[in-house]
């Protein structure tokens, strides 16, 4: 029996699930003070950062849900863990996020036209919170990157990269708040906060457009260009005699990488060595043919004899 892929081993899945729950718990713990300081300081930058918190929470729930589905074996039908519904959820969530960013951009422009002074105490508290947030996100970033490397997993890859983005976003907000506080003696300092908020939401919006595009592409099975899909098919054809059943191909792009899963079944009489040899040949062939790809062969139960 060929062992299950590393990130699908029950122990690894538990570890990944715990990592997501920890992320979720910390995100929740930070949300309440973040709302308080944003509301009382009047800082648009802190308000914009709340969107990041909301997105973090949504991603946490989605990621945890995906891992739970994998662990409970709801992926026997080879739906690549997430399934279209979860992707749709992600895209809808992203759409709401982009709409909120647009709203924040409009608010920032309004505050540039009609500037308002910030509450210094709560702004300073906000800066302190951002510093704490940066420390926590930095810790999570390092921890989850280690976990992702231990158990090759696209989901964990996404998580540590999100932690890194959060850490950097905390630094950016901290810099903006620091600037507002440092320049408070100047009358024009009232423009610093909305200007920083506008820059923040613009950057966040632009960096999210590819995610939205990718999500929609995934729902339409267009994560890979057709010529690359045909290359996968060519390798499947070249190794046709090495497997008994073919159940599908799923691909996903994440952080510049292409993750490809190929579901195959092998004849009961075949030796493990032969099955591994076929899987390896397929993996190496596709990975060398499609730059930036990581291929995994998923074992599926052999198809029952249609004649019986």
């Amino acid at each position, binding site marked *: 029996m060929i062992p299950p892929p590393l990130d699908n081993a029950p122990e690894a899945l538990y570890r990944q699930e715990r990592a997501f729950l920890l992320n979720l718990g910390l995100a929740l713990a930070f949300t309440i003070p973040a709302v308080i300081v944003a509301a009382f300081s009047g800082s648009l930058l802190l308000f914009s950062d709340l969107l990041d918190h909301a997105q973090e929470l949504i991603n946490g729930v989605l990621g945890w849900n995906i891992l739970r589905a994998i662990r409970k074996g709801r992926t026997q039908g080879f739906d690549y863990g997430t399934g279209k519904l979860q992707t749709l959820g992600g895209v809808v969530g992203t759409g709401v996020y982009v709409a909120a960013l647009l709203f924040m951009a409009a608010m920032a422009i309004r505050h540039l036209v009609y500037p308002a002074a910030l509450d210094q105490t709560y702004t300073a508290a906000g800066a302190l919170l951002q510093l704490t947030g940066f420390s926590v996100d930095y810790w999570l970033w390092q921890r989850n990157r280690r976990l992702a490397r231990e158990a090759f997993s696209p989901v964990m890859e996404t998580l540590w990269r999100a932690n890194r983005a959060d850490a950097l976003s905390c630094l950016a907000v901290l810099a903006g708040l620091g600037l507002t506080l440092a320049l408070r003696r100047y009358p024009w300092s009232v423009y610093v906060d909305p200007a920083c908020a506008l820059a923040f939401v613009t950057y966040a919006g632009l960096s999210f457009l590819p995610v939205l595009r990718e999500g929609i592409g995934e729902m339409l*099975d267009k994560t890979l260009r057709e010529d690359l*899909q*045909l290359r996968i098919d060519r390798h*499947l*054809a070249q190794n*046709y005699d090495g497997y008994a059943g073919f159940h599908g191909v799923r691909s996903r792009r994440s952080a510049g990488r292409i993750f490809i899963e190929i579901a195959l079944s092998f004849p009961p009489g075949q030796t493990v060595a032969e099955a591994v040899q076929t899987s390896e040949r397929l993996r190496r062939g596709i990975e060398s043919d499609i730059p930036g790809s990581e291929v995994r062969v998923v074992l599926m139960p052999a*198809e029952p004899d*249609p*004649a019986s």
Partner: protein
Amino acid sequence: MNAKFDDGAVGLTAVVSVQGGLDATNAALFEAHCKKRLASLAQKSLVIDLRAANFLSSAGLRSILILGKHVKAAGGRLAICGLQGVVRETFVISGFLDLFPVAETLEQAAGLAGGGPPPPGAATPPGHR
């Protein structure tokens, strides 16, 4: 993409003809249709008639691959009929031309799928499985 699947039979071999394009939007439907057709006729071999097909994507190819394995598991054979134009090109690029016997007419394809001696004029690729 719009496609129509027509059922037929040549002797003891089931035939499913594709009109239009076979892509991600209808590949699963096509696969299910063929399996159902095989089950309803209690037949093991299948001819996929692509004479009226004008497009075939990677998803369409994969449905043919799945059917090839399905038929093989039942002890039958899968043959392709009428490759032309862009569909033939897709078969060539993907290396599928070497996987299944290809014929120009339904009778020839049924002969290849039936396991009997291929009729004169049928193109049997070297080393097809």
